[in-house]
């Protein structure tokens, strides 16, 4: 296995081996559970309405970002806290490779946990309402959302002790509260990348309207969203690689 692959695998081992990941997975499954109960108890109309107005909202504006923030911030955060940075950096591999491997690991971990949440919610929609078209939209949206948040938090985890907390406070205070109160803030919110890809691929006509009602204007476009996510990831990778080269790592 290459050094890159080795860092990805061992970072994922660290992420997915602990109780935290199970807790995050349980959280990510909550919309699906609610969706399943509502769909089975109240019928298909309520099920599909719930999917639009609750499951997508909670998944894309709260749970997937929270999962990706946790993994992104801890990709380096745990190395710093565990004082294992020297193990990683005193190797014949470039700091850019380390940054890229950590980004990929955080993205894969967050996509797996967040994506499972999205898949389960889409599955619950199918069981309750007989609509099976949302799976791809959910997975693509979750994956892009995970990439953006994980990338944004990657360098923060390198320089800040409480990057997860800072990310969550940002998510809740700025995105969940200020962006809803002052609409201009919503234009800067990274959750729009995942939601615009999701809205583009979703078969529900009202999805965009539902998202816009609470989270400001969302322009549907999976291609644009993918491009934005890749650009953000590239910029954050460059910042992280540069920080790894220049900062004192102890």
């Amino acid at each position, binding site marked *: 296995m290459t050094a890159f692959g080795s860092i990805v695998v061992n970072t994922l081992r660290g992420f997915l081996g*602990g109780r935290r990941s199970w807790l995050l997975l349980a959280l990510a499954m909550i919309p699906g559970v609610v969706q399943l109960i509502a769909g089975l108890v109240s019928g298909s109309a309520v099920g599909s309405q719930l999917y639009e107005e609750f499951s997508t909202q909670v998944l894309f504006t709260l749970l997937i970002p929270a999962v990706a923030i946790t993994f992104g911030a801890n990709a380096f955060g745990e190395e710093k806290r*565990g*004082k*294992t940075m020297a*193990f990683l950096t*005193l*190797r*014949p591999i*470039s700091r850019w490779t380390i940054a890229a491997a950590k980004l990929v690991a955080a993205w894969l971990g967050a996509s797996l946990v967040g994506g499972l949440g999205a898949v389960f919610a889409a599955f619950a929609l199918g069981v309750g309402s007989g609509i099976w078209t949302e799976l791809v939209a959910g997975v693509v949206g979750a994956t892009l959302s995970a990439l953006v948040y994980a990338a944004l938090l990657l360098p923060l985890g390198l320089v800040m002790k409480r990057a997860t907390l800072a990310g969550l406070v940002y998510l809740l205070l700025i995105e969940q509260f200020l962006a809803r109160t002052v609409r201009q803030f919503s234009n800067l919110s990274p959750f729009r990348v995942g939601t615009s890809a999701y809205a583009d691929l979703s078969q529900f006509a009202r999805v965009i309207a539902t998202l816009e009602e609470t989270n400001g204007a969302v322009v549907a476009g999976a291609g644009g969203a993918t491009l934005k996510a890749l650009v953000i990831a590239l910029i954050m990778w460059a910042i992280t690689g540069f920080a790894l*080269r220049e900062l004192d790592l102890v």
Partner: protein
Amino acid sequence: MTSPALVPNAIIEVNDVSKWFGDKVANSKLTCSFGPGVTGLLGPNGAGKTTLLRMLAGLTQPSTGSISVDGLDPRGHPKLFERVGLVPEEDAVYEFLTARQYVTYAAQLTGLADPSQAAADALATVQLTESADRKLGEFSKGMKQRTRVAAAIAHRPDILILDEPLNGTDPVQRARLIALIRSLAANGATVIVSSHVLAEVERIADRVLAMTNGRLAAAGNVEAIRAAMIDIPYKVRIDADDLRGLGALLIGHPLITSVAIGNSEMVIETNDLGALGRDLPGLAIDSGVRITRFQPEDMSLEAVFGYLDKRR
């Protein structure tokens, strides 16, 4: 004259290096070099040893001055680390991995062709083969330390930097690690070992760099450092069948600066231990006194370091 802090066949060179964190000076104007063999970096806690080792490994950048490893700056030349192994001071391992996974991970990151075999060999070297498949979270401090040493030597580095490597190990493990360090050095590796335990350094190192307050206080082997302290006379403990007779002879002798006679032994001070060693047998024979013990008191590293520390 070349400074004893420098070695002729240097692999690592530290040139006028200072490092400060905010207003705290960790290292001040250090110039020294390291070559094949074991160099002990000695100093009390807070002397600046760890900061120097971190700079040598490229983990932190000097505030002023320069460091080169085989002619290259350790920061920005990751290829160098194919040849470098580091055991940092922190008791840090990935607790969710087994010892085998941990050492294999280290070998993979170093780009070895067969990391599994390299890991197995390194674990065998530190006698951890039987526990290799246990999670590191279940290991004792000493076992973690040996695992970290295994990870540092898995790629057979020719430069090995060990920060307090014997911390947490029991006497048997300690003896084995010392033997391992000495055998690596015997095979031509440049080994730097930091410790604040004088007895450890005395057993491991061929050469000592002593640090106090972030500065280099002394360099060389212990005898040479002691000999360089010309302002501090040597203390020698002497037993003889006629202490008073011998004492009368020595008082006023040009090589002796003081004589203290007790009930069963005598302690003298001299500035020239070598000359006294040559003259004393003749004096004893001439006066018919039989000397049963002639023991320099302050030739140990502990005594030498005590003098260095007092000069702070």
